[in-house]
């Protein structure tokens, strides 16, 4: 899967300030892109545009060559389901970890969502969290759970917003392992981070992109 932004400008509804200005960018399966930049520069917004959640006010979003925003809603939905964006701050529903991780599968009407979720947790070494309630989790655990939730639906593109934020050293290691595995399976990964990237380098970063004042520069 390839998502390409061409000349994308974005401003929030009702605002005249453009958060993204004339962005050109390309992400694809099997490649890892790092987006870095100061806070407020537009990293999150950029991720959301790539995740097909935000519509640009100017410019084109191409998904495998098609102009996404001029497609019909059904097609948009099926395309969007292949891309998952994970928020910086974990947003979990009331319920158990298992139920949360199964959410993506449930939304897609996949039978056996719960067992699928359990599988994912096991593969990530997190099955000990399965029965815990959403509010019993530490910040780091919640973050891993929200990532597990994304991984469970087997996306072709995974967009992570500051995934290391609440993780301690061990968990960062775990995440790196998971992302390496995903990359080797052909999943495209985009990570926005303003953290030191040392650990992330071990995933194997193919491109680093810097966002400053809404403008994107390749490095």
């Amino acid at each position, binding site marked *: 899967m390839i998502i390409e932004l061409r000349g994308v400008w974005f401003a929030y*509804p*009702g605002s005249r300030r453009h958060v993204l200005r004339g962005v050109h960018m390309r992400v694809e399966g099997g490649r890892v892109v790092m987006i870095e930049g100061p806070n407020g520069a537009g990293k999150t917004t950029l991720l*959301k545009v790539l*995740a097909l*959640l935000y519509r640009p006010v100017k410019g084109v979003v191409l998904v495998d060559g098609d102009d996404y925003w001029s497609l019909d809603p059904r097609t948009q*939905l099926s395309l*969007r*389901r292949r891309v*998952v*964006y*994970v*928020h910086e701050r974990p*947003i979990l*529903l*009331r*319920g158990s970890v298992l139920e949360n991780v199964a*959410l*993506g599968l449930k*939304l*897609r009407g996949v039978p056996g969502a719960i067992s699928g979720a359990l599988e994912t947790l096991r593969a990530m070494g997190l099955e000990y969290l399965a029965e815990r309630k959403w509010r019993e989790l530490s910040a780091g655990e919640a973050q891993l759970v929200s990532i597990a*939730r*994304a991984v469970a*639906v087997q996306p072709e593109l995974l967009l992570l917003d500051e995934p290391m934020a609440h993780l301690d050293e061990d968990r960062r290691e775990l995440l790196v392992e998971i992302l390496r595995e995903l990359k080797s399976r052909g999943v495209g990964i985009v990570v926005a981070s303003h953290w030191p990237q040392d650990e992330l380098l071990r995933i194997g970063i193919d491109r680093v992109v810097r966002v400053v004042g809404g403008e994107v520069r390749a490095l």
Partner: protein
Amino acid sequence: MNIVEEVLEITLRSLVVSGTATLLASAWSLPLAYILAKPGRLRSLMASILEALVGIPTVLLGLALYMLFSRSGILGFLHLLYTVRAIVVGQAILITPLIAVTACRVLKSARESFEEMALALGADDLQAMAIALREALPGITSSVVMGFSRAVGELGIALMLGGNIRGTTRVLTTAIALSVSMGEYELALYLGGILVAISVLVSLTVRLLKGVQGL
């Protein structure tokens, strides 16, 4: 009818009147809250106006409605004045801004976080909305309970539109006012105690239900 029976009758009436008013108000306030939770300058303005109306003095609203329902008023033909129906309508109007505004805040925050998360995970618009609504449920319930508390504890509307008539429109608050006006402070305090107890009990009951539902 002895005093205990009368107090029971008044208490029951307070519960039924304010309870009905709360259900009525919720029926139109919650959809309104949902509409106002979407972004937009006009919606924002409306929300601000409603926010200002939350604290409207009950006497003022009571007077305005009185002039409408009175024999010489536009809606006089409905013969609502000095009946419990008038109090129900009046209280429902009173608590509408409160329920709408607080539910709106809950819905707004729920939509901003849960709706977006759901969409990012591959939900369609309907699924995302359903998830946001389900997560907003505890907050909305609190909203409604708050509305009930305001209704059951208000005086101005019950007095002006109901008339505090013994046996038909006397409720806890108007009975308290009457007791005070007669200098019967002890009785007034007992009735006040019942009123507070009701509010607390309702709050606790809702909390219990939320716990049971895993909310």
